[in-house]
Each structure stands twice: as C-alpha cells, then as structure tokens.
C-alpha cells in the first residue's frame, strides 16, 4: 500500500479511498487552482474511471521535473503533466518515463511523433501590449530599434524565459547574440516568473510583456476587456507545447494509460482554452470558444526539436547572460 493512502487512512481523512484505485498526477500549480483546468478534469475523469484522481501541484514545469528526479523510481506519481518540449529531452534522459500509447488526431501546427510524451495543449509566445499602443514593432529588430520597454522572465527560473531564448535562437541562429545586445536597452527588468512579469506590465511598468498570443483572450472572454493585444512578429512565433508522460514505475499503468487517452479526448480538451488559456492539442468538435478568433495567427510556427533545444540551452543562456550583463 502506498504511504500516501496509508497516511490518509491514519488521519481518518479519507478512509474510503483505500479500496478505490488512486491515480496520482503531478502537475504545475496553476493547473490545479480553482480557476485552472484541474477541478473540471478531475470530475470528468473520476466519472468514468471508478478511481480517485489525485492532482498534485508542484511549482512550475521545471520544478516538476526536478521533483520527479528527486523522487526517482519510488515516486508516488503515475503521470507527470506539464512539461514542455524544452524539458522533454532531459526528462526522457532520466529513463523514468514509459511510452504513453495515446492516439489522437492532433491539431498542432506540426506533426507529433514522440512516443514518450503526449501533448495536451500548446500556444505561441508573444509580446502582449495595450491595444492602443502606437507603432507596435513587427519583429525583434524593430523592437530593438524602438524605445518600447519590455519585461521578460529569467530563463534560469521560468519556462517562458527559456522559451524566449529559444525563440530568438530559432529565428536568428548565430545572429542571436547580436539581437540580444540590441534588445538589452529595451529590457526594463527580468523577473523570476510569469506572474511577476505580467503583474509589472499590468501596473504600467513596461509597454510589453513576454506572454502568449492567447493572453488577450483571457481579458476579452473572462473580463470583457479588449484593451490587450499580442504583437505579431514576422520572424514567426516560438511555440510552447505542453505534454504529459507516464512514469515507468507507476503502480497503476493501465489507469495511467486511460488517463493519457482521456487527456486527448473531447472532455479534457474542451476545458483547456478557457481554463489554461492555451490552444487545445485536439480542437474540440464545438470549435474554439468565441473570442479566440480575434487572436493573431503567426505567419510561421517555430519550434526546435527537443534534443536540439536541450543541446542549445547552455550556449544560448551564456549568450543571453553576456548580452544583458553589459
């Protein structure tokens, strides 16, 4: 018996669960919050699996991976949900993950061939600005030449920050250091994570913030506020594909595979756009919610293959540090 079940039984909190199989999914904090997809996903899956789905928030994507490495093969987790393609190479290298077996007709802008990790949503990084801003730059060079002030996230502590590094690298390759050197005077500040950066932007500390093309949809749909927009960049936009995988040491492998298939089903996918504010990896039959049609569609989708992203990370980070430390 698992320790967590044991502890729960001892505490008298949920003795009834001891008979029901339990599927533990590690994910990031915002997924499990009351406003995230967690509550709806849990309800829908429990209705069909005859099990107890336990969603556990463990910081952000990178923290999730660290957590799994820390626990190793003895982890209580059966599924890890919330890594992105910048992390999957490192995750696969741990040897802790098994094949997921889920199949779906993905609506991603690229073909999905990873047998270890399955995508549940995706989005484009973009600089979000106030809709009434004038002379919004249309590429990184124009941004660097303008006096627009931006807030970005530190690639050493956040996944969007790392995504921006990869974006510039994918768009400019060896020219990336020069682009960063020109951008340096536009960067008001660098924050630890997305929340801090977005908060600064909303407080008026910067003209633009690194976020997602889908961020304006939140303001539009949930707050009926059309004052935010994302800048379309001609170089294309780097994608973040969020994925989940099954841990090889899971004691509920079948339930875990059921969950992975559920993850790409209509019920899961239809809650993603207005709870996680990303694009679903399989567009629901009902289509995207009203408001998503107002979002920009990048002319080009950029995404470095997982192994390449992992190989480039250290050198790209070094270039970024060099350019911004001057």
């Amino acid at each position: 018996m698992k320790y967590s079940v044991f502890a729960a039984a001892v505490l008298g909190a949920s003795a009834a669960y001891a008979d029901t199989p339990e599927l533990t999914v590690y994910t990031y904090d915002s997924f499990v919050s009351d406003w995230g997809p967690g509550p709806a996903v849990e309800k829908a899956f429990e209705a069909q699996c005859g099990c107890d789905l336990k969603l556990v928030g463990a910081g952000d994507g990178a923290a999730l991976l660290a957590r799994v490495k820390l626990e190793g093969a003895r982890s209580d987790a059966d599924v890890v949900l919330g890594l992105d393609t910048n992390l999957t190479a490192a995750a696969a290298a741990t040897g802790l993950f098994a094949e997921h077996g889920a199949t779906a007709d993905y609506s991603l802008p690229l073909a999905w061939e990873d047998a270890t990790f399955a995508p549940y949503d995706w989005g484009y990084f973009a600089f979000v600005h106030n809709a009434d801003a004038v002379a919004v730059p249309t590429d990184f060079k124009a941004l660097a030449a303008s006096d627009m002030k931006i807030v970005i996230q530190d690639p050493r502590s956040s996944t969007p920050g790392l995504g921006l590094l990869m974006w510039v690298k994918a768009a400019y390759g060896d020219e990336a250091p020069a682009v960063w050197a020109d951008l340096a005077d536009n960067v008001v500040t660098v924050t630890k994570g997305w929340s801090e950066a977005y908060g600064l932007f909303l407080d008026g500390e910067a003209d633009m913030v690194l976020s997602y093309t889908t961020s304006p949809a939140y303001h539009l749909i949930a707050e009926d506020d059309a004052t935010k927009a994302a800048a379309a960049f001609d170089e294309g936009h780097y994608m973040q594909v969020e994925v989940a995988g099954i841990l090889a040491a899971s004691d509920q492998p079948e339930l875990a595979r059921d969950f992975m298939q559920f993850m790409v089903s209509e019920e899961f996918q239809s809650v993603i756009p207005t709870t996680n504010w990303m694009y679903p990896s399989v567009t629901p039959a009902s289509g995207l919610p009203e408001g998503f049609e107002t979002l920009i569609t990048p002319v080009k989708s950029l995404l470095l293959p997982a192994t390449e992203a992992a190989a480039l990370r250290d050198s790209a980070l070094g270039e970024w540090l060099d350019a911004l430390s001057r």
Partner: protein
Amino acid sequence: MARRAEPISALPGAGAALIVAALILGTLAAVALRAEAGRGFAASDWAALRFTLTQAVLSAIMSVGLAIGLARALARRRFLGRSALITLLGAPFILPVIVAILGLLTVFGRAGWISQVLMFFGLEPLQIYGLHGVVLAHVFFNLPLATRLILQGWQEIPAERFRLAAQVNAGPGAMWQLLEAPMLKRVVPGALAVVFAICLSSFAVALTLGGGPRATTIELAIYQAFRFDFDLGRAALLSALQLGLTGSAAFVALRVSDSEGVGAGLDRVLRRWDGDNHLARGLDTAWIVCAALFLILPLAAVVVAGISGLFLLNAGVWMAALTSVLVSALSTLLLLCLALPMAAAVATRRSTLIEVAGILGLAASPLVIGTGLFIVIYPFADPFALALPVTALVNAVMALPFALRILVPRAREVMMRYGRLSLSLNMAGGPFLWRVFLPRMRAQIGFAAGLAAALSMGDLGVITLFADPDVATLPLQVYRLMGAYQMEAAAGAALLLLVLSMGAFWILDRGGRWHAEA
C-alpha cells in the same frame, strides 16, 4: 569543569541549538550526498557573489543607519497613533515579495505615483531598476525590523538613568555619550548582521528590481542549479558558501557587540527631558513623517489594489487562509520552544556558538532545506502528509535569528540584574523561570512571537516543494491566482494576507506589552 552558579541551566538551550544546527546542516548534507559530480563553480558564480555582497552591505548600512535616527525619534516622542505606527512597522517584512514589490512600484515605479507627479511638472519619471532599486526595496523591508530592534535597545535603558541625567542637567550630547552610544554599540552590530544576512539570500527582489542578469544573487544560482540543472552538488556548494558568509558575519557581529548590560532599574515608564526644544522636536517629527510615508504609501497601494478583489475570494482562498493561520500558530509555538531556552543559555554563559546556530536560519536557502528534508523524510513517510508541520518547523527556524536578536539582550539584562539575588534566595530553576525570568521577558516574547507568526504567515518557501492542492497556504494561493490571470483576486488575497499577518503580529505583540508603552 565546575558548574558556574546560574539560576537556570544552559543545557536545554544547547539542545535547541543542536536541533537547529542539525536541521540546517543535516539537510545540506543530505542534498550534498544525493549529488552526482556537478560542474562546480563558474565565472558567473563569482559575479553573483560580488553582487550579492555589494547589495547586502549597502542594504544593511542604509537600513540600520536610517533606523538609528528613526528609533531615536520614536524613543523620544509620545504622540497619538505612535503604537499603531510601531505595529505598522512590522508590515513590509511579512508581505509576499511580489506583493510588496508591486506595492513599491505603485509608488516609485515608472508609472507610479511619484513619477506621475514628476511628469506633471515635465520631469523624467523615476528610474527604479538597478542596484539602487534593490537597496530601496531592502530598506523598505528591513528598516522597520532594524528600527524595532534598536528601539528595544533604547527601551532597555532604565528610565532612572534618564531621570538622573536630567537632574544633573546633562544635555543631549552628554546623554548621547553616556547612555545612548554605549547602548547602540551593543545593539547595532546585531541589527547589521541580521539585515545583512536577510539581504544575502535575497532572490526575487534582487532579480526583479535589479533589472536583469547583472543582479544575479547566489540564491538565484542555487535555484537554477536545482530547478533547471538538477545539479544538487552545485546547489549544496553554493548553499554552503552562503551559510559560511552569514555565519562569519554573525560571528564578527556578535564578537564586537558588547554584552555589558546597562544596570538595574525599576521598570518605570521612560520619560525624556532632553528633547524638549523646538529643534529636537522638529527633527524627530521630520524623521517620523518621512519614514511613515516611505513605509505606509506602498502598503496603502496594496490596500487600494486589494479592496475590490476582496469580493472575488472563494472558498479555496479562505481555506488557504485558515491553513496559513494554523501553520503560523504552530510555527510560533515551535519558535518559542527553541528560542527561549537558547536565549537563556546565551544569557548565562555568553555562548557565541549557540547564537551563531540561531542566525544560520537566515542564510540557509529554504530550497535547500526543503529539498534536504524531502530526501530525509521520503524513505520513511509521505512528505505530503507532513507538509504543514514541516513548513511550520522550517518557518520557526527561519524566524529564530530575529527572535534571538530580540530576546538575548533582555535575557542578559534580567540575568545580570536578578541572577545573583535569586540564587542567594535559593530561587533557581522553575521558580526563577516563572517568577523572575519570563515575566520580565514578556514584552520581548510578545514581539518575537508576533514577528514569527507574521513571518510564517507570509512565507512562501518550503510549502512549494511539499504542497498538495488541498493544503495551499495563502501566499501560495496568491501566486496560483496570478498564474491563472486572476490579478484582482490575487490582490484581494494579498490584502487578506496583510490583514492576517498584521493581526497576528498586533495580538501577540500587544499581549506582551501589557504594561509597557512602546
């Protein structure tokens, strides 16, 4: 070795110190042992070390320097709202960093209140990002704490001394030289060490207001080693470096602080006769008004931003609030169990090692402690089930340095004034503790407990590693709300947090000061 005659034994204190040291060093060792060969020190780590030291030294000097002036003004003046102001002084310290930063930026930012006034007059907006921004924020966080620590020093000078000085017509200069300067010599090094150590492990403040990678601190390097590289060896190495720095700073500070007490008095209400002229009154008023504005405006910004969000709070936030209150209560209790014996032990035998053990909590990275505990607990029990007690314990250890700075000077004084007398009356052990020691420590115990409760309420450290969606604490909930774009609700939850922390601080601090007037 012959036992020195003391009314209470130092053994429990030494035991508590041992527990604390084992917790901090043991978790560090657990992390180091789990490590595979890491990549060691990089050039960027040295740059991080330099920046960390520079900002910590500047922040400590600025905070304590300003605190001396403010504490003196507060010690000399009695005015309406004085005690409310002193309570409010506890506030910046306990806010989640991001909330405090947003509050500061609402006042000092590019689009902030001051910048708007400047721009109205055609001037450039304030430029807050950079080293000066980091120091500004650290002064905002630490000036209140330093002020309270130094104010305690002023209050420990017996009122009879000032009465006597006034009787022999000693002017402000003489009073300074005879009474105040020696007291400062005793209190200031400790305050400097505490603020220095707090700023040493600064991470989110330094990063956000530092303006970019130039403002990298060791704590960020530790964070990166964990989160992205999972290089436990490097994390442990950097963490040991941070501990070493704080440990030596603490050691130096404790060595130079003079432990001589100021002599016995009858615990009378303090009155000052030296500040009764226009110049002194004007100067003190200026100090108090400026400091109050500096501290209260950003808090007001937090309140303004949060009020409408209060109506958006749902059951999850209230549950998180309840959890935070419970953790905070447990943490305060644990803190007192550790700090009181340690303070008594330090007071009886000047054991610097015990004090250093107490101050280590400041420099230990919560991430390292959390990970270490995770490694240690994991083979035996479910870390989730222990999330709350572990968080409470770590918070208690983190608050210990502050508690000791508050408790130790007073404990020394009580021991010096009443120790021999009590022994000659054959009053040692329990009776001394209950009848002499604890009653005289009451104000300091209240202050320390209030600070610990408030700190624990606002802490977002270990919980992130152990958290389970059902046991979110309020600061964690603030971050989760922000991550889900619920900025207004997050502001409301932050305001709730501010109110709860201030409430906990006020109740405990007030309870301890039932007869004092500070």
